[in-house]
C-alpha cells in the first residue's frame, strides 16, 4: 500500500508549484532586463528629435550612420584593445594557473584566494591606483627620474598602453580561474608521458597541454574579451581623447550628444557580438560535453 503523502501528489501539481516559484523572479528579469533590451531595439530604429529625445518612426538610418569612418575607427580600436588585453592575460595567466594547479591542495586554496582578493576590491579604486602610479608626476616617473633612468617624465597615462594595462590588471583573475580549473583536471601522468616522449618544453606545451586545456582557454578568453570590449571605466579614466572605446562612445551618445537612437543602435550591435560569442561557446561546450559522455 502506498501511504498518503505530499510526495505522491500528482506530477502536474508539483510542476505548477515550480512555475509559481519561478514566476516572480522571471517577471523581475523580464521587466528590468528583457523589456529594456526590447526598448533599445525599438529605439535603435527611431530617429533623434531636434532637441534630443526620440521621434518614433521606422528607419535604418542609425545603423547606416554606424558605418561612418569615425565609428568604424572606434569599433576597430575597441576590438584591437580587447584582443590585446585577452592575449596578454592569457600569456600572464597560463604560467600562474599552471603553477597553482600543480601545488599541493592546501596551498592551491591559498593562492586562489590571493588571486581573487584584488578582484573583490572596488574597480574604481584599482583603476585609480594606476593613475597614481602612471601620471606624469606619479610614482613611476618620480622613481625613474630619481634613479636617473630617464631625464624627463614619460607620458604613459592617457594612452592606449595605459588602457590595456588597466584592462589586464582588472580582468587577469577572470583568465586565471577557468585556466586553473582546466589544468587541474588534466591527468598528471599524461604530462609526464609527454615529458618522456618529447623531453622538451614547447612540444609538451603545444601538443599536449594546450589541446587538453582548450575549454578552459576558450572560457578564460571569453571572460576577459567580453568585459574588455564593453569597458567603460578603464578607457574613461586611463585613456586619452584618442583611446575612446565602444563603451565610452555609447555613454557619449546617450548622455552628452543625447542621440538615443544612435546610442541604441550601437548597443544592439555590441550586444549581438557578445551574445553571439556566448551562444557559440555554449553550443560548442555542450557538444563537447555530449561527445565526452558518449565516448
Amino acid at each position, binding site marked *: 500500500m502506498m501511504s498518503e503523502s505530499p510526495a505522491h501528489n500528482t506530477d502536474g501539481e508539483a510542476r505548477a508549484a515550480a512555475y509559481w516559484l519561478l514566476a516572480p523572479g522571471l517577471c523581475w528579469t523580464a521587466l528590468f532586463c528583457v523589456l529594456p533590451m526590447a526598448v533599445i531595439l525599438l529605439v535603435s530604429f527611431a530617429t533623434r528629435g531636434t532637441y534630443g529625445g526620440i521621434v518614433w518612426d521606422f528607419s535604418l538610418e542609425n545603423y547606416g550612420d554606424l558605418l561612418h569612418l569615425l565609428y568604424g575607427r572606434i569599433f576597430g580600436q575597441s576590438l584591437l584593445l580587447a584582443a590585446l588585453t585577452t592575449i596578454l592575460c592569457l600569456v600572464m595567466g597560463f*604560467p600562474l594557473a599552471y603553477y597553482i594547479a600543480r601545488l599541493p591542495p592546501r596551498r592551491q586554496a591559498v593562492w586562489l584566494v590571493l588571486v581573487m582578493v584584488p578582484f573583490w576590491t*572596488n574597480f574604481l579604486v584599482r583603476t585609480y591606483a594606476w593613475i597614481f602610479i602612471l601620471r606624469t608626476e606619479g*610614482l613611476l616617473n618620480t622613481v625613474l627620474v630619481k634613479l636617473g633612468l630617464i631625464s624627463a617624465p614619460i607620458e604613459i597615462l592617457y594612452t592606449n598602453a595605459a588602457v590595456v594595462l588597466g584592462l589586464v*590588471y582588472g580582468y587577469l583573475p577572470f583568465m586565471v580561474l577557468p585556466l586553473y580549473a582546466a589544468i587541474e583536471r588534466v591527468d598528471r601522468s599524461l604530462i609526464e608521458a609527454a615529458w618522456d616522449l618529447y623531453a622538451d618544453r614547447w612540444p609538451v606545451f603545444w601538443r599536449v597541454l594546450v589541446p587538453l586545456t582548450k575549454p578552459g582557454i576558450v572560457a578564460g578568453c571569453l571572460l576577459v574579451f567580453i568585459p574588455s570590449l*564593453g569597458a567603460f571605466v578603464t578607457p574613461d579614466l586611463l585613456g586619452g581623447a584618442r583611446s575612446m572605446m565602444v563603451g565610452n562612445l555609447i555613454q557619449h551618445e546617450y548622455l552628452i550628444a543625447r542621440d538615443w537612437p544612435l546610442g541604441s543602435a550601437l*548597443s544592439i550591435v555590441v*550586444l549581438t557580438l557578445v551574445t553571439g560569442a556566448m551562444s557559440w561557446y555554449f553550443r560548442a561546450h555542450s557538444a563537447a560535453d555530449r561527445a565526452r559522455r558518449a565516448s
Partner: protein
Amino acid sequence: MRAQGIWLRSCSVLGLVFLYLPIAVLMVFSLNASRLSAAWQGFSWQWYEILWRDDALRTAVGNSLLVAAVSTVIVMLLGVPAAMGLERVRSRWRGWLEPIVLLPLVIPEVMMGVALLMLFAVLQMPLSLVTVIAGHAAFNLPVVIVVVRARLQKLDPRLLDAAYDLGATPWQGFWRITLPLLVPALLGAMLLAFTISLDDFIVTFFVAGPGATTLPLRVYSMIKSGVSPEINALSAVLVAISMGLVGLSLLIQRR
C-alpha cells in the same frame, strides 16, 4: 625540470606582485603627509581625518548601504524561490527559461545601464534611489539564483523523500529540511549580492538621479577632479573593507 620549476615559480610570484603592488602603493601613500603625494614626506593620519568629516561622503555611504540592503532583500526573496522553481520545471521548458533568467550575467554593464535608462525614460519614471535599487536587483538576481541552485543540486533528494514519507507537508519539508541545508549558500549569496551592489558603478552611473549619489559615484567624481591623498585614504578604507568581506565569506564557506 628543476629550471622549469624556478621559472614557473618566479612568473607566478611576479603575477601576484602585479596584482597587489598598485593596491599596496595606494595604502602606503594614504599615510603620506605631503599633498603632492608622489614622494614620501613623513607619516600622517590627516587624510583619514578629513575623510571622516566629509559630509557628502557620509551621505553617499548611507545611500550605498541603503541600496545594497534593499536590493539584497529583493533578490533573496525573488531568487531563492526562482532557483527552487528552476530545478523543478520540466527540462523542455528549462532550456528556454534558463537563458532568460541568466541573461543579465552576459550583458555588458554599459548596455545594462543604458537599456535601463531608456526603460525609465520611456516609462517616464524619474531617476532616483528607487531606480538604482531596481537596476541592482536586476543584475544581482541571476547571481543569487546561480549560487543557490549550485547548492540545491548537491542536496540529497532522499532527505526530502524521507520527510514526506513520514508525513511532512511540502511547507514543512521546506522549512525543516531544505532551508537549514541551504543556509551556507544563502549567506554566501547574500554577501555576494550585497558586495556587488555596494561596488557597482556603471549601472548606477546611468540610472541614479540627482541626489542619489552612491559611494562609487562619489569616488568617481573625486577621481575625475584629480589625484589627491583623500582618495588614497578612501581607497585604503575600501580595500580593507573588501578584504574583511572576503575573509568573512571564506569563514562562512568553511563551515
